[in-house]
Structure formats: structure tokens, C-alpha cells
């Protein structure tokens, strides 16, 4: 195939692109009816979504709700931090004690296991 053939092919395809809608195209009226049929067969969308943790909410509520949730999460983290400052020291003592007991037991168990 030489350059001349390629030019001919290009010209004919451009011509076909112009002619085909005139030759095979549909009128505006038939287009409208197709649109209406397509609408009746269209997927049904009710705008309700299952958002985080299974809550069923309208789609438009999703973004503002996520903002409120982010704020609540932050508040929770901060309150957890504050709570953990003083009482955790006391709790830590008892954990340490229990750890020391359970640690001793684990050590003993490890020694016994090492015999087998």
C-alpha cells in the first residue's frame, strides 16, 4: 500500500462519517422515544446508601456525616488519652504484678517444654 492508497482510504472514511448519519440516522422524534424507553429500562436508583457500619442513609448525608464522625473519633481519642494518664499508672502496677506472676509461670512452662 503506497501513500496514494492511504490518502484515498482516509478521504473515503471521512466522507462515510459525514454521509452515514444522513443515510442511516434517526429522526429527532424517534430519538426521543428511544430515550424514553431507555429511561424505563434504566437501573432503579433510590439514592439511599449503606454507609460506614451498615447505616442506611441518603447519599447526600454521607460527606457531612463522615465529618461529624471524624470529629467524634478525635474527641474520643483525646478523652482516652486524658483518662489513661493517671489511672493507668495504678493499673500498670497491678499489670506489672500479674505480669510478673504470669511471667514466672511462663518461664517455668518454657523450661519444662525445653525438656521435651
Amino acid at each position, binding site marked *: 500500500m503506497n501513500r496514494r492508497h492511504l490518502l484515498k482510504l482516509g478521504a473515503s472514511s471521512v466522507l462515510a462519517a459525514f454521509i452515514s448519519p444522513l443515510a442511516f440516522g434517526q429522526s429527532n422524534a424517534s430519538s426521543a422515544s428511544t430515550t424514553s424507553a431507555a429511561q424505563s429500562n434504566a437501573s432503579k436508583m*433510590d439514592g*439511599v446508601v*449503606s454507609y*460506614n*457500619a*451498615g*447505616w*442506611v*442513609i*441518603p447519599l447526600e*448525608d454521607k460527606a*457531612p*456525616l463522615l465529618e*461529624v*464522625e471524624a*470529629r*467524634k*473519633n478525635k*474527641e*474520643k481519642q483525646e478523652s482516652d488519652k486524658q483518662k489513661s494518664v493517671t489511672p493507668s499508672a495504678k493499673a500498670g502496677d497491678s499489670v506489672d504484678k500479674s505480669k510478673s506472676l504470669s511471667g514466672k509461670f511462663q518461664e517455668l512452662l518454657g523450661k519444662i517444654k525445653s525438656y521435651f
Partner: protein
Amino acid sequence: MALSHFYFQVSRVDNKHMDQSKYFDADVIVIGTSIASQSVIHQLRNTNAKILVLEGGDLQRTDFADSLTFSDERGHYVNHHWGGHWLRAYGGASRVWNGFSAPLEKWDMVGIDGRPKWPITIDELEKWYRFSAPLMGEDPSVANLVKYDTAKLFVDRPYIIMDSPLSYSDPKLLTNSKNIELRIKHNVIKFTADDSGSYINGIWYSVEGKVQFSGVKKNTRIVLGAGGLGNAQVLLQPADNRQVPVGNESGLVGKTLMGHPHVPTGEGFFDPSVVSKPTWAQVKYRKWLPAYIVGADYKTKLNLLNASISLTPAAIRELSPNEQAVQEFYQKKWGKKLELHTLYARTEQLPNPDNRIEIITEKNSAGLHKMKIYCVFGARDMMSIDTTARMLADHLLKNKLGVTTVDNDSIFLNTWGWAHPSGITRFGSSPKDSVCDSNCRVWSYQNLYINGSSLFPTVGYANPTWGIVSLGMRLGDHLKQELKKSA
């Protein structure tokens, strides 16, 4: 009936151990002492009818009697589920179980979507709901819940919490009546029939494991009320002298077993009006639980089974940030206070012949072949729960009444059964598709009646106790009329 004729009939029963001189002398033999049987007896108490009551258990629960209700359970109802809902003791299961009851509706009974039809109308059933309500300790107005606006998308149709009256465990109710004789520890095993197959002429039973036989007169009516499973167990026991067990001429005994799939579907924040007492039915409520069902027209249109979703206040706990956010957001958006409740679904189970009981070779201590029970949920059972939950979520949201979760994993992985055994000796309008006629009489026999939830062609979404009592009273009334005619 001449005694010689009676002996002739009994002698045809094929068993050499039979004692021909022994027979039960009664106008009506009632088998079982459950709330079903006591409802029949209630209607006959003030007549001259001689009533013999045979109870398999003792006046109290015993290990021996408890062992009789064990079965090989296959499917979704496991861990002695069926046996745990079925007692061999005076008063039957109603001694231990009360019910979140709700009446059936017309939609349940008319054969929609391939379900079997009930042979009676909702109007007739409503009449017996009304008569039987006081037996359940309720005001007759609770029967007003039968009829509602079927065009509504959702109807607030609460459960009536019926406590089983203590009198059902007190044998004095029967023994104080002169015309009633109560025999405990009499476990009925099976029936024998005359040669023409028209009458029951004998009963095999056991007393503390010792098998015995008694003849039955042709004009003695027998009412089998051995429980939702026990009725079919008796009618499936093999006969000595015929291929088909006596009572299973239809071939339907033991089939279409139904219970009630149950599952928590989620939680939600609700406007207090959602859980307020319904006023549309003019009911004098005693104890009730808020619940919603889909209206009948929508159920038909959407091919749903009858499911209900009830609401109970959630346990007091610290809300997660996610829950706090949802509550705060919608309280602000709708400008109202919202309370946390949990949602719980109960649904009818489609009558499926694959869900059934069969008997096995091994016998229990009373001499009955033990049962193997198959009962699984179908796709429609579970999809009906899911669709109802999603529709309710959507409905409440659009009406600014609540925001809910619909928990997929809970619905499809954690649905469990609630054993309200129903449907395995169903009544109907034709012997081609039912075991009993509209008067609860086994089609083939003139003197054998079935009583209890095993009659139900469909099961609705609620505990069957109220329906059982209603049908029991209706049967008692029918027998009363029959006895009058023959007197």
C-alpha cells in the same frame, strides 16, 4: 354398638399380643394435655360427653419423659432445638413457653404465591381468636389486629406478649370435672383401623415402657394433640398389617415442616412515636412489643413472605463515635430527639416439602420410632427478612422517623430457628393436598381428629400458640355439635 361387633373389629388387628377384652370406653379420647388439648376440652367440659385424656408424661417433668423428645436434627434448627420446645409433661410446652403472639391475616390464608390455602376464612378464625383470647389471659379486642389497611407500606402491628396461664399446669382443671378421666404416663404409639379403613378401632400405647393395646369404639372420637411434631410421629409409625401407616394415606404426614427464622437485623435511632402504642386497632393491650410488617398489597407485589420487625430499647452502653455521629447528625437535621433501639426480625418459613420429619429404625423408651428432622431455611425465607429490613430502613428515613443499620452478616450468616413446629399434618379442602379436612378430621377416618400447629398450612410470622388455642376451641365446638347429633 353391640359388644360382639366391637370384638370382631378388634380381632382383625394383626397382633397376637393384643388383649381383646380391653378397650377405652369414652365418647372422646383426647391425646395430650397441652394448651391445644385443653382448648378442646374447655368446649366439652360442661357436656355429658365422657372424656378420656391420655398424657404421655407425668404431672411434672421427668428424665424418662424428657428423653422421648430427642430427635436427630438436621439443618438450621439444631442443639436439641425441637425437643427443647416440646414437652412430655402435663400441660405440654405451654408450661414453659409463653409467646410473642400475633394473629394471622387474610393474606396468610388465601394461597398466595403457591402456598397452600387454609380451608377456613379469616372471618371464622378471627371469631375464634376473639373467643380464645381470654383463655390466653387477654382481652378479646386483641383480635382486632387481624384486619388492617392492606394498602399501607408498613403497618405497626405489635406482638401481644401472652403469658401462659398457670392453670395449664394444674391438673385440677381436668380432674375436678366428673366427665373427664385423666391417665398420665400413657404414651400413644399408633392407631389401628378397621378393614375398610374408615374408623380407628384401637390404640397402641405404652405405660412406662410397657407396650399395651386398647380397642376403641366406632363412635368414639379421637383427638390427637401430641404436639406439632408428635402428631406426625404417631401417624408415621409403621403398621403391622398394611404398607401405609394408619393416618398417612395422603402421604403428606411429616412434610412441609415450618418454624420461624429469627435474627437481629440491626439497630437504629428512632423518633419515640415509632415505638408508641398503636391506636388503629382499638385494642386493650396488656403487654405488647412494637413491631412492623409490610402491608399485604406490597407483600404480594414484591413476592415477600410475611416478616415482622420488632423494636426493643437497646441496652444502656457507651455509644461508639460512629453511633454518636449518626445520632447527633440526624437529631440536628430533623430537629428531634432520637432513641436507640435494636431491631429483631421474625419471618414465616415457606412450606417446603424438603423440610420434613422421618422416622428411623431405633425406638425411644416409650416404643415409638424416633424421628429425624430436616429443616433448612430457603433463599426466600432469608431474602424476605433482608428486604423487609431494608424497606423499613428506607421508609423510616424518608419519613424522618429513624435511621437504622441493616446487618448483612447477621441476616445471612446468623439467622437461627425458633422451633414452632407447624404444617406436618396440614388441613385443607381436598384430600389430594392435605391430611385433614376443614374440621381437622383425618380424611380417611370418621373418628380421628388432629389438633395443634401441625394443622397450619402456612405459619405466619408469630408464635403459633394463639392460633393453636383458637383452632382447639373450634374443634371442641365441632365435636360438641357432632356428639349432640349422635345423642
